[in-house]
């Protein structure tokens, strides 16, 4: 009972003297942990020879079967963020972070049992379903809290947290490899033990975030901050109810804006190593390609903070115009860099593209806040993440299948990606149009006091915070 009340929103209201700069590290505690998902592939090869140890046996799991673990987790990320978004929003960040920690750590522990018992279905359920729910709930848990603490710099604040999601793999990848080395012997691969250690460490880390996170007291404002009396064209002081947001064209336009931006980035992110080697045979070796992938990860992470912070100054709409216009030019130039054999131009183009891919993720919460207000931004963001799941299918399909088609039709490997690059540039032009069409939400969608009272009576907003705060 006392633990449950400790998780309540009412117990997380900041006392005077609390610094809002405690909230970004609280958010990072969660995002750095769940960002491990990007590094899950380090387990694929070891898990494909758990029985054979030195090499795979027919009874071992196939890489194609193991690939489903990550896919299931990403599907459940999108689903849980969409389904639990409102629960996260109304219950407060501590309850959400605690739940995310339980799901995430529980997913690892169940997967450890799955590895020990050599039962892949347990891993699908553990890491895929339960861990995926931890991913979704954890991803959206600090978003609206950060926006409320940083009304003057919402882009920077959410950018910091979402940067952590990009950076989580930097820690998880070498840590997992090191742990597996420690637990492996000549007759055993230490995947199960590594899962147990990671589960415990991540749970501890996420609980620290849950303990130190606070929501601002009602009516709190940063010192010297004056809310705009007259809102800018695209920044509202009103709130839109979570399910009403779905009825607006703005939600779906932003959905496409995110989906197109992610589609353009995610396909090349997954194929960067192979693509760079095939476009520059003899110039980019496998080792150099691995370095290129590492550099892209750094720009993916850095872009999240850089672009989201920049959006506080130039506006969200202009930031997405930058992504789409610069992206279109760069994608159209990539085949040319291949034809003149300029590795430097090729690398530079993709580093900028991938920084904008990360920037798209990090800027979108602030875009939603501008359009739909602060009250349900976390829940609306959760539903928007289905665009990520969709892009996760479109992007790799575009890159892989078009390359395959070209190669089987006699196109040299060095030019096999050209068509895809032009298609990506075309998709970004569509993104420009979608972004251009985004206007302020019609006032009929704004929450009204009677509507709020009705919902409060129904117990929807019984989370300790005044309705509509």
């Amino acid at each position, binding site marked *: 009972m006392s633990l449950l009340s400790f998780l309540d929103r009412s117990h997380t209201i900041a006392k005077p003297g609390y610094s809002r700069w405690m909230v970004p590290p609280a958010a990072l505690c969660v995002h750095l942990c769940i960002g491990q998902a990007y590094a899950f592939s380090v387990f694929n090869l070891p898990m494909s020879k758990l029985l054979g140890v030195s090499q795979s046996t027919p009874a071992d799991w196939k890489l194609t079967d193991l690939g489903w673990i990550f896919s299931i987790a990403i599907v459940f990320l999108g689903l849980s963020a969409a389904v639990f978004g409102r629960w996260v929003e109304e219950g407060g960040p501590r309850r959400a972070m605690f739940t995310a920690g339980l799901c995430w750590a529980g997913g690892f522990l169940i997967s450890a049992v799955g590895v020990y018992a050599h039962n892949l279905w347990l891993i699908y359920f553990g890491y895929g379903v339960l861990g995926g729910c931890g991913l979704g709930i954890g991803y959206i848990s600090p978003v609206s809290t950060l926006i409320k603490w940083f009304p003057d710099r919402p882009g920077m604040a959410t950018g910091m947290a979402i940067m952590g999601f990009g950076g989580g793999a930097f820690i998880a990848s070498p840590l997992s490899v090191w742990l597996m080395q420690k637990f492996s012997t000549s007759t055993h691969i230490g995947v199960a033990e590594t899962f147990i250690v990671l589960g415990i460490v991540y749970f501890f880390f996420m609980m620290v975030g849950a303990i130190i996170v606070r929501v601002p007291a009602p009516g709190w404002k940063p010192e010297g901050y004056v809310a705009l009396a007259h809102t800018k064209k695209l920044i509202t002081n009103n709130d839109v109810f979570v399910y009403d947001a779905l009825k607006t064209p703005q939600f779906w336009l932003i959905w496409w804006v995110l989906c197109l931006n992610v589609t353009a980035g995610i396909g090349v992110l997954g194929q960067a190593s192979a693509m760079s080697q095939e476009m520059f045979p003899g110039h980019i070796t496998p080792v150099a390609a691995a*370095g290129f992938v590492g550099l892209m990860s750094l720009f993916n992470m850095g872009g999240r903070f850089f672009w989201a912070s920049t959006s506080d100054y130039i506006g969200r709409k202009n930031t997405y115009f930058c992504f789409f216009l610069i992206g279109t030019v760069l994608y159209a130039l990539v085949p040319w860099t291949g034809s003149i054999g300029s590795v430097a131009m090729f690398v530079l183009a993709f580093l900028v593209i991938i920084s904008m891919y990360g920037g798209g993720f990090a800027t979108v919460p602030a875009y939603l806040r501008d359009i739909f207000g602060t009250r349900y931004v976390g829940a609306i963001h959760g539903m928007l993440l289905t665009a990520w799941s969709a892009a996760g299918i479109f992007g790799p399909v575009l890159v892989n299948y078009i390359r395959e088609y070209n190669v089987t039709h006699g196109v040299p490997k060095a030019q096999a990606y050209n068509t895809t690059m032009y298609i990506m540039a075309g998709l970004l032009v569509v993104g420009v149009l979608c972004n251009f069409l985004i206007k302020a939400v019609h006032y009929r969608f704004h929450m009204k006091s009677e509507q709020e009272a009705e919902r409060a009576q129904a117990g929807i907003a019984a989370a300790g915070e005044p309705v509509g705060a």
Partner: protein
Amino acid sequence: MANQAQDSSMTLKLLLAWGFVGIPLAWGVMQTIANAMKLFQ
């Protein structure tokens, strides 16, 4: 006086909180940079 003590306590909490997330992240970034340098070798 009480305010000063509260301020220094909050500063310490901030340092601990940022160190708690910043040190592992910096370690991970250094590992990745070392890996990325292979592109220029």
